[in-house]
């Protein structure tokens, strides 16, 4: 009987991935994509580990040390993301009205929410850590017990993370309303993520493999040989696997801790659920915020202004949206810091040439950054209209005009970000002359087209039933990213030759031959034409699909 609550979840997922009891094209595509990503991770890890192992005993220990650090970081992130998910699954699920009105015990609901929270937060870690472990097993030539130990260590870590998160969530929601708790957890996890990212980047882990950085080698060696996080469950699982990989020895104490800790935490969570859940759930329905009073609205000129205003208000009043600006801020800081930290002077190439080469490659990086952010913010913008889209559909406003207003809304922030990244990184690289203008022109062109593509793909794959922006990012978002990067690479790679000739001429203070100038103009004109055409076709096609 304990499994009866799982039926909708199981059947729903089966119906989603196997419509009509068959393996659908969508499921096959997702599986193929997942498999391809696993292979890439495996090969990448194998290459890195093989390099480390070619660097004597220190490299071997270092590879385990990095693995332990990454594992502890993942564990911390898992706890926070489990807490955010647990608030949603326990208190904000739309099926609570059915389940809680039925004669179901709190223990049974806890089991359901525990299992679904664990799976939804950690399946990616479980699946994508397998190829990493596979690479470690191959390079370390692991013994037969490695896989059973892995089967214990990885799920145990996921279970400990979600059990800790569930316990903390039930207690937190008892004191704060669910939505406020979700916000608190979201801010904490964002700040924590930013902090980890900044620390990791500013610590410059690449220096770990740079022997010139360390005077006292023995001190360094003993420091990295010590087990990481002996008091943390993630440390237990990493050390259990690390010890076995290095010495072929099983640490039974760690194995015992990994078996018993999830059980203890689970039952503690169950007791907390029995005592505090319903009171918290009842309170969570009260925190509707209806008591808040807003200032009267001023008048605005025209439809476009109201659409912009609506977009802005929605963004600013949804803490899960605007709080992501912190993450964007951290990304920008680290992005630009990387340029500051570049060891240009140690390169055998002339500094001028190298700086211009990096500035050119930076155009692609800026484009990639714009594509990632567009996938997160612009792609789901139409789906985020949700049920209210009927208002737009039934209003005397052409859909193309509505999309144009949305496009113009997102254009200024993306333009500003692009200008910031290009101008500051070019300044740090001491770039002047034609490369400055080329990188500005190309970055802006790529960004503007990418934003239009994101809007077009988001319209084509619009999902008005998704609960929030993040949920609206289905396989269409991945397809958008793939197409956007393909477009950017095509434009950039076609420009390599004319830009190289232009910059080379400028660096040598020579006059550009007329044929080179014609090729450059043709490339620039072609890039503008292709970009415009691509954005136009995608948006037009999407609008036609949406109308159907």
């Amino acid at each position, binding site marked *: 009987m304990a499994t*009866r609550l799982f039926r909708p979840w199981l059947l729903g997922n089966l119906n989603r991935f196997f419509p009509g009891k068959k393996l659908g094209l969508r499921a096959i595509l997702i599986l193929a994509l997942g498999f391809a990503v696993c292979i890439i991770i495996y090969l990448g890890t194998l290459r890195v580990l093989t390099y480390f192992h070619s660097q004597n005993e220190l490299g071997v220990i270092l590879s385990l040390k990095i693995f332990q650090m990454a594992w502890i970081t993942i564990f911390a992130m898992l706890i926070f993301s489990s807490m955010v998910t647990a608030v949603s699954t326990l208190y904000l699920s739309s099926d609570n009205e059915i389940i809680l009105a039925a004669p179901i015990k709190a223990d049974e609901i806890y089991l359901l929410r525990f299992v679904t929270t664990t799976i939804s937060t950690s399946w990616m870690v479980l699946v994508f850590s397998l190829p990493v472990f596979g690479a470690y097993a191959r390079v370390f030539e692991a013994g037969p017990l490695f896989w059973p130990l892995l089967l214990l260590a990885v799920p145990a870590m996921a279970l400990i993370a979600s059990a800790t998160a569930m316990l903390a969530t039930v207690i937190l929601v008892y004191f704060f309303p669910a939505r406020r708790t979700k916000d608190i957890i979201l801010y904490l996890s964002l700040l924590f993520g930013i902090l980890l990212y900044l620390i990791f980047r500013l610590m410059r882990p690449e220096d770990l493999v740079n022997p010139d950085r360390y005077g006292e080698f023995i001190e360094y060696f003993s420091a990295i040989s010590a087990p990481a996080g002996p008091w943390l469950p993630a440390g237990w699982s990493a050390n259990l696997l690390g010890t076995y990989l290095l010495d072929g020895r099983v640490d039974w104490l760690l194995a015992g801790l990994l078996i018993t800790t999830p059980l203890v935490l689970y039952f503690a969570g169950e007791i907390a659920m029995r005592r505090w859940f319903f009171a918290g759930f009842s309170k969570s329905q009260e925190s509707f915020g209806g008591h808040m009073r807003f200032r009267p609205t001023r008048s605005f000129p025209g439809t476009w202004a109201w659409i912009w205003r609506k977009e802005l208000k929605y963004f600013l009043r949804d803490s899960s949206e605007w709080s992501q600006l912190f993450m964007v801020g951290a990304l920008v800081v680290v992005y630009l810091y990387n340029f500051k930290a570049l060891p240009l002077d140690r390169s055998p190439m002339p500094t001028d040439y190298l700086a211009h080469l990096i500035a050119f490659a930076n155009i692609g990086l800026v484009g990639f950054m714009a594509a990632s952010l567009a996938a997160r913010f612009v792609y789901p913008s139409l789906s985020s209209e949700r049920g209210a889209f009927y208002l737009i559909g039934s209003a005397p406003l052409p859909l193309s005009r509505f999309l144009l207003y949305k496009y113009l809304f997102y254009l200024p922030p993306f333009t500003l970000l692009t200008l910031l990244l290009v101008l500051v990184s070019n300044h740090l690289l001491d770039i002047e002359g034609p490369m400055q203008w080329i990188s500005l022109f190309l970055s802006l062109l790529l960004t503007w087209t990418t934003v239009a593509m994101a809007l077009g793909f988001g319209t084509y794959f619009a999902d008005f039933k998704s609960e929030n922006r993040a949920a609206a990012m289905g396989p269409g978002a991945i397809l958008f990213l793939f197409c956007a990067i393909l477009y950017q690479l095509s434009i950039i790679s076609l420009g390599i030759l004319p830009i190289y000739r232009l910059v080379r001429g400028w660096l040598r203070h020579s006059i550009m031959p007329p044929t080179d100038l014609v090729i450059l103009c043709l490339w620039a004109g072609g890039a503008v034409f292709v970009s415009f055409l691509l954005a136009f076709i995608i948006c037009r096609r999407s609008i036609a699909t949406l109308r159907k």
Partner: protein
Amino acid sequence: MTAPLLEINNLSKRFGSFTAVDSVSLTVAAGEIYGFLGPNGAGKTTTIKMLAGLLLPSGGSVTIDGQDLNRSPQEAKKKTGYIPDRPFLYEKLTGDEYLRFIASLYLQSGTEKVLTEAEKYLELFDLTAWQHHLIEGYSHGMRQKLIMASIFMLNQPLIIVDEPMVGLDPKSARIVKELFKSLAARGTAIFLSTHSMEIAEELCDRIGIIQHGRLTTTGSMEELRLQAATGTKNLEDIFLELTGAYELQGIIRALRQDTEDHGSR
């Protein structure tokens, strides 16, 4: 007199300083249909959510067939069927899978018998041909009918319904009314919240009117007529009289004047 199946004593709910439900007391006997009326924001849905065990009261008690909802929630819920006004349904389940799931929530055994009962309701609501389709393809009315079938099949002693006819076509609405009458005749107590005066007048044995969180009026149609003392006959007039018709009269006069002025121009 039969013992009440639903007994509400001084039920209150406060959201911060705002009192949504203020010391409401009423009883519903087995076989009785109790209509719960009130203007928007009067506290109807809050009361219903407390009766369904979805909201913790700030004070007072709810007893269902002798079981205190606060002290023995599982036992009380075993005797209750709740039909919300906007039913959430699992989009990726079929109607049949949904019914089986609901049966498993309320019954430890004998689900097959209940599912045979469900077939009858699916047939009545013209849903048989759709039962193996995903719910995401159902219309609003079909969803409403499915959730009704899922509660009717359980044959619970108490049914709590919030706005039963929203989205139903006239044929289904007629069937639902007849079903309510038939269930009540067989001893089911029905607590029904609605804005439709016709439904309340046609179905309910007794009616309670809630205003600003307080149950201001309760009684049979005859008793309500006496309380309103207007000489009017239908429930709509009585309801308006008891909930502020004097304001409405002024509004209607102003609108009519407006129409006449517009016509003379």
